């Protein structure tokens, strides 16, 4: 089965489950058992920042969010890839909540500089990037996901969507520019970008 056909099957499965098809629901339930595994896998990759009991709750919350959003799944990607985004965002949210709790509980030394103590932000916060994708026009977001999350070439995306490859490329580029602007991405201000790198900098 091709990837595209598989995605269409996933969308059909979800639609059937939403339409109260009992066997579809059972099949979907089996597929969504991946939520707990994915949350556990991500948690391990992120260095196990949460307690086991928190992780249990997080898996349940994530599963419910997936259910609440099932009607937005359109088969543009594999069901598990779509579910993964929920797992990632929910885990990152939980990690942030945990960090804030720790920060509140940690006494500050006199004169401590909170800003200086904060960890350096990555150039692009993955969490923000992924969340902002939902603010793009649906088709643009879908093409970005297919390109980067599914690893498809532009020609394959064009074929799948029935659009000319050049259209896909141009829209993809415009969508990236939008994302960049929304992220406020000017990690290299023009004067910095063009400045010669100083020794030891």
């Amino acid at each position: 089965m091709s990837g595209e056909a598989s995605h269409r099957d996933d969308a059909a499965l979800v639609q059937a489950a939403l339409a109260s098809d009992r066997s579809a629901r059972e099949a979907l339930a089996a597929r969504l058992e991946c939520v707990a595994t994915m949350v556990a896998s991500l948690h391990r990759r992120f260095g196990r920042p949460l307690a086991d009991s928190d992780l249990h709750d997080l898996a349940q919350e994530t599963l419910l969010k997936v259910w609440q959003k099932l009607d937005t799944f359109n088969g543009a990607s594999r069901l598990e890839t779509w579910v993964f985004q929920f797992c990632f965002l929910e885990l990152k949210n939980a990690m942030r909540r945990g960090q804030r709790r720790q920060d509140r509980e940690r006494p500050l030394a006199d004169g401590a500089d909170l800003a200086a103590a904060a960890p350096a932000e990555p150039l692009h916060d993955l969490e923000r990037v992924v969340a902002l994708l939902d603010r793009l026009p649906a088709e643009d977001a879908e093409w970005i996901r297919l390109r980067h999350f599914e690893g498809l070439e532009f020609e394959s995306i064009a074929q799948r969507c029935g659009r000319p490859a050049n259209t896909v490329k141009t829209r993809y580029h415009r969508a990236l520019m939008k994302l960049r602007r929304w992220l406020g991405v000017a990690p290299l201000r023009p004067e910095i970008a063009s400045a010669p790198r100083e020794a030891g900098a």
Partner: protein
Amino acid sequence: MNDDEPCSDLSPADDALLERVVVGELAPDAAAVVARAAESPAFAAALAATLALQGSLDSFGELARATVAEAAAPPAPPAAARRAPLVPAPARRWLPLLAAAALLVAALLWPRERAAEPAPTGDPALLGAAAIDFGESARTLAAGREWSFVHALPPGGWYTLTWRAPGDLAGPPLLERRLGAPRYVPTAADVARLPAGLAEVEVRVVACAADGALLAAGALRCSVVR
């Protein structure tokens, strides 16, 4: 933020050059790109930021593919399990979570004809279901000991509680109760219905509104005390 806002602060020529790079028609170190970046700080900044953004998206994609592949991997064959009789501690810690998650899914997918004794009113409410917050008391099942959980049930609503042997999602329930409040005091007869030697049971709770709409669901494993 709308679809018509300008996407680039570059000149059309720079924007076209940048597009060729981001879609892979030109390498970032192609002579034309390097020359333009040297001439235009704005172009250089846009190029660097866009490539970084693509790198972030690629990183996320790699993480997604690796995690999805791991989730789809079949469990270790029995022979391998026999060779490694001791389950590593982290994996052991996850077994209850996996079981509970599977139970939660099953609870959410509970056939409406069983949960909704009044005429079912359609399924959309299923998607608005919330998780039930279990308290400590719900972790033990013992005769005479109140078993409760945290949930606000609207008037006319009810809970269906079903206990099963751990991992047995398909078989008939060992014990089933319908409650009008989030508390239950098991009787000795209830506990006696559980097979002797069964130290733990899994319970799933489904909360329904008066019209049968599913309000919340939850599942957990609890210890049986005789």
